[in-house]
């Protein structure tokens, strides 16, 4: 949505079909406006989606709930990372570190006997503070250098976990009690599902607000024209640091949910591969789009499992090939493809369009 808000759409017929002209590659690369369904359709689909999401854990066995919960966990990471990378234009390969901090916050707080919602709050606050502290010096760097600093962060994570052994129990890991509080008549998988659903919905709404409001515009301004933004009174450095810390907090909450879901954390859970899957998530989903995080999360959860059932050797290659293909041919990601495919349909739906 902000793609079109910030960059003038190059084609007037933004969402025309392939017949509109040009090669397939051009058609794929064309920026498109967000879908604009009539109000009744928007309300109906929101309620429908909410209802469906609420019913899922009640009618499905736990292995389905587990993977759907993981999709929501990745969605939360994707929302935060997309805020930073897509809207803010800052690269981070180190979000597995914040994810790990959040997971360990829940594990350690759980050992200390804290209630799960309180532990999840800590899982957001601690990475925010750490992210702010790291962002202060690191965000004075640009592009490649920032990428390298955050890469170092991701690579140091397992070692750092082992180093803080009195707290983290080193390579032995921590078992977590994820059973719901006594007053909740739900199973473990359903309880964590609803926690994740609440966090993901909140994250989704907040991200949309951020992306569309004054803050979102200042993020994009910093991304696209830092000098101009500065002359207009945007404190670019402050903006970037806050953005980084916020994005870290998203990853932290996601990490906390992940820990509650798996009921065990160990240093080997948080390696570089995890960070790479996060980056793949936002690129495949669509940079600078909010729903892209959901589509990307679905991709990283299900596609590697699918490819490995075809051939285990393909799993490692999937991310690489897909990243390259998307970077070259589908820069707007799955969200862009969805707009292209559904745009013409949605425009035909009768009704008063949204303002």
């Amino acid at each position, binding site marked *: 949505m902000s793609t079109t808000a910030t960059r003038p759409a190059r084609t007037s017929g933004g969402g025309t079909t392939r017949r509109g002209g040009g090669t397939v590659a051009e058609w794929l690369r064309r920026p498109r406006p967000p879908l604009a369904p009539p109000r009744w359709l928007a309300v109906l689909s929101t309620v429908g989606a909410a209802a469906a999401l609420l019913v899922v854990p009640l009618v499905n066995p736990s*292995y389905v709930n587990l993977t759907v919960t993981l999709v929501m966990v990745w969605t939360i990471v994707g929302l935060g990372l997309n805020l930073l990378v897509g809207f803010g234009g800052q690269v981070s390969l180190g979000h597995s570190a914040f994810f790990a901090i959040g997971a360990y916050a829940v594990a350690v707080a759980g050992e200390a006997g804290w209630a799960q919602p309180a532990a999840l709050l800590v899982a957001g606050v601690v990475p925010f503070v750490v992210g702010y502290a790291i962002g202060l010096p690191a965000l004075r760097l640009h592009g490649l250098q920032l990428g390298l600093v955050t890469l170092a962060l991701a690579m140091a994570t397992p070692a750092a976990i082992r180093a803080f052994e009195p707290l983290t129990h080193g390579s*032995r890991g921590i078992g977590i009690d994820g059973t719901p509080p006594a007053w909740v008549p739900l199973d473990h998988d359903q309880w964590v599902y609803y926690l994740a659903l609440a966090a993901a919905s909140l994250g989704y709404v907040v991200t949309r607000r951020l992306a569309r409001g004054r803050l979102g515009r200042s993020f994009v301004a910093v991304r696209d024209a830092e000098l101009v933004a500065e002359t207009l009174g945007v404190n670019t450095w402050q903006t970037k640091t806050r953005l980084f810390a916020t994005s870290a907090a998203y990853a932290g909450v996601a990490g906390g949910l992940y820990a509650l879901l*798996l009921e065990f954390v*160990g240093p080997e859970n948080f390696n570089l591969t995890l960070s790479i899957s996060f980056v793949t998530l936002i690129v495949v989903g669509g940079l600078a789009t909010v729903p892209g995080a959901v589509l990307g999360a679905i991709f990283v959860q299900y596609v590697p499992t699918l490819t490995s059932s075809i051939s285990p050797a393909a*799993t490692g290659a999937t991310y690489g090939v897909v990243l390259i293909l998307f970077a070259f041919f589908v820069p707007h990601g799955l969200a862009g493809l969805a707009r292209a495919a559904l745009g013409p349909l949605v425009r035909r739906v009768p009704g008063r369009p949204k303002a």
Partner: protein
Amino acid sequence: MSIVRTAGRARPLTTLAAGIAVVALTLAGCSGRDAADDAPAASGEDAGDDTTTAAAAEDCSPGFTETEVRIGNSIPLSGPAAAYGAIGQTLQAYFDDVNAAGGLELADGTQRDVSVSVVDDGYDPAKTAANVRSLVEQEEVFALAGVLGTGAAISVAPYVEEAGVPNLFVGTGTDALQSLHAEDPWTTGFMPQYGFEVQALAEYLVAHHPGATAAILYQNDDFGESVRAGFEEAFEGTDLEIVAAEPYELASASVDSQVTTLAASEADIFLDWAVGSFATQSLKKKMELGWDATTVVSAPAADATFFLKPAGEGAADGVVSVAYTKDITDPSSAGDAGFDAWTDFATAHDEVDPLSAPAAAGYQTAQLLEAALQQMQGCTREALLEAATTFEGLELDLAPVAVTTTPDYPYVFREIKVQVFNGENWDLAEGDYTVD
């Protein structure tokens, strides 16, 4: 769905509608699971009843029918730990042979196929958790066998306990299984308990190196600390003494400086608890320094092909470790019935490397499972767990000692041997060591 949702701006109307939906569904939902809960179990029993006629009275667990027993395995087939995938592939190949020969005859006299589903988890605990759940709920396996890793074992423990599915012969020896055991007896470990390994080696050293001094290299975490404490405790009251101890970081580039410091102590025994390539490095450095001490290595590092021989000619001579698998790399073992059976099996299957330690572990896991299934009285998961924890002097093709298990000790090996490396192969030392 999310695509369309994009468009829905959080308007008052939307919010209200969504809110109503939330409340309504939550209320409706609270009782919803009970029905859903019973469904899989019920359908499982139905499936059993369809095929079972006589055994129907005996309420079999899901995954057990008149013609088939289903077993699940989640293992890294991809990623950095893919080499261990051989455990799952060997398990599958072993039972493919059994099925081709008409199936496995169980205690009730009926022959059944044992079908093994192996799924890839890339050594990612999140994937292991998802795999285990889908194996149990979707494929309705009777039991899990040969799953790899400490993290995998601990993180799925609450689930397998609640579902009542045996998670047998997990590839770990972590002491955590022991503490878990009281409330969750459903998980058993394939490797010797790490604490037991230390105990056996300490006993060996006390008997064979009286009056010796020892220097220990260990991982700087609580696993390393527990190994060090274990040796110190075992040496207490004997004439052995630890005179030097150096921790190392898993993240460091080399252990050379630690080995140099330890060598300066001129200890007679080098307790080398470095893992993987660090073990190779330490052996190499020890030879460079001309430190003449008996080296003791941990079981995971005791792989001749990967870790000992690469240290160089003579560097690993006289290395001591525990033995719970026969030396499959030693051609002179030919003639031993178990070893020959293994070699015949491995050469008949392209995917099984006769020199691979993980494949041998998979072969042992398969034979343990086979024995447990054969000894099982009845057709429930409880019966299988009971059978697996009450082996009495079970002979495996590749185990140097007979396997005896008890319900109060969640590891396969209560008895192990000690082996000494001769530069080319392992020689078994005299004597058995039994867990305290």
